[in-house]
């Protein structure tokens, strides 16, 4: 059971968290291995948190915000994109697949898409197998 990949998702309050809500109200089923952390804006995501998640044994980290132009804070999602990209470079240096860190634009109306992303991410991560940090996870 715990061998299935574990995902931490940082979502913005206005689009992506709402999208996850809609997946719920529309009863769209997806794997139970994602843990959502709600922020006001994807631009708040600090690379440190991402690295921390991996270090503690996360198999994947999702950062999700509003579509370009739709950002509730005008341009926070663009900042998120820059940070995710630079963090990906760090992951490569650490010998981690950069695809383990994923950036998605999911709007409040895309419940189905949120579910799709989690499904797809989970499959890809399973194919990649555990990270070298996995052993740290308490199981």
């Amino acid at each position: 059971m715990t061998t299935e990949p574990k995902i931490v998702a940082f979502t913005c309050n206005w689009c992506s968290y709402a999208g996850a809500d809609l997946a719920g109200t529309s009863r769209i089923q997806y794997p139970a291995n994602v843990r959502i952390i709600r922020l006001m804006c994807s631009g708040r995501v600090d690379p440190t948190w991402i690295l921390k998640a991996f270090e503690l044994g996360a198999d994947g980290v999702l950062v999700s915000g509003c579509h370009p132009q739709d950002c509730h804070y005008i341009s926070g999602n663009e900042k998120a994109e820059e940070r995710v990209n630079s963090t990906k470079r760090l992951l490569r240096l650490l010998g981690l697949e950069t695809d383990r860190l994923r950036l998605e634009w999911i709007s409040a109306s895309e419940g189905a898409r949120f579910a799709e992303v989690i499904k797809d991410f989970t499959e890809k991560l399973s194919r990649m197998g555990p990270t070298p940090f996995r052993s740290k996870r308490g199981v």
Partner: protein
Amino acid sequence: MDEKPSVLVIGGGVAGIQASTDLANRGFQVYLAEKLPSIGGRMAQFDKTYPTLDCSICILAPKMIDCFRHPNIKVLAYSEVKSVSGSAGNFTIEILRKPRFVDAARCTGCGQCAEKCPKKIPNEWELNMAGKKAIYMPFPQAVPRVMTIDPENCLYLTKGICRVCEKLCQAKAIDFSQKPETVQIKVGSIIVATGFDMIDPSKFPEYGYGKYKNVIVSLEFERLICASGPTGGHLVRPSDHQKPKTVAFVLCVGSRDVKAGRVYCSNVCCLYSAKDAILVKEHEPDVDAVIFYTDLRAYSKGSREFIDRAIRDYGIKYIRGRPGEIREDHETKSLTIWYENTLSRKVEKLQADLVVLSVACVPRGDTKELAKVLGVELDEYGFFKVADPLYAPLDTTVRGVFACGFCTGPKDISDSVAQASGTAAKAAEVSMMYARAVPRAVKKGG
């Protein structure tokens, strides 16, 4: 009585919501009367908005919730304005609250009752392209999130049997004993924002609406292309749920049409059809989208550029010419559109699998009654008449009663929102004018 200056807003669409929150945010007591069980209005029905291609409900829903949760706004959904007396500064209004037969305080909107309700009825919010139950939530993002029982169709209310919903509701929210109640409120001014309706194009036999399954109206298209719509956002034609190869959009159906009694231009069709055509391309890049127009009216900010993009980046095809007639192939249910391409001056025919008619926008069906209640005049088309189109475009013919958005004539969302805020200013002016007189007197009095 309430010391805050108070205002009645009629109509819970984007304009009504804007006017309400603008006033509430500055400390006014607002009563928002909405005829339907949920606020949101037309905009809640659209898939995307032009020219930004924002998801309509995503940008609207937060406003709906803010409005509903606002401590200074009392949302009277599923209600109708029955009588108005008094004058600017102190109107007395009677509002009829229709029974939902569901206790709003208890209902959590979980929807289990609807799952089990045995009575299936057409869902007019989805333009009857989907069904719903006799106990229903108008749409997924409805505000308030409270179920409503349709008294014409509920088995218990019509035949005295069933009560399934009552049995399985753990919240004990079902209440068949609810009666219509009339609430009385006192306000300084009234803002009308009742929006618009669309004509039934079956009075144009040459286009075959109602006769040909694959001829639909634009509002039906909005639901068809919408992820939360009847097809889950899959672009399929009604006759066989197959993906169309060509989608054609016909503009000015009943607009700019003297015979149909509407000389005026409906204002929004040119742009939303460009948007709809773009949506077609975004959903199915290999589907052709063709738009038949007479004058391309892309005048609002950024919209000419939007049309240029539709043509350049999406390959939307524009044909100048109002089609003469549309005929169906009885086997394939595909449609032949006969038209004159007025720029090449040739009569041609186009094979389309789905035809979307941009029908004329008209005042809401019950505008006449409301006008009578308010004592305001309507124009020749039944839109609310403004005091002076030049410098009093927000005043009706009665002092203290203001109007904004589509109900005073065709307008797009941004013009409607700007006007809605404008009426908030007018209402505030009224309260200033009467501040000395009214509230103090009332305060001393009681």
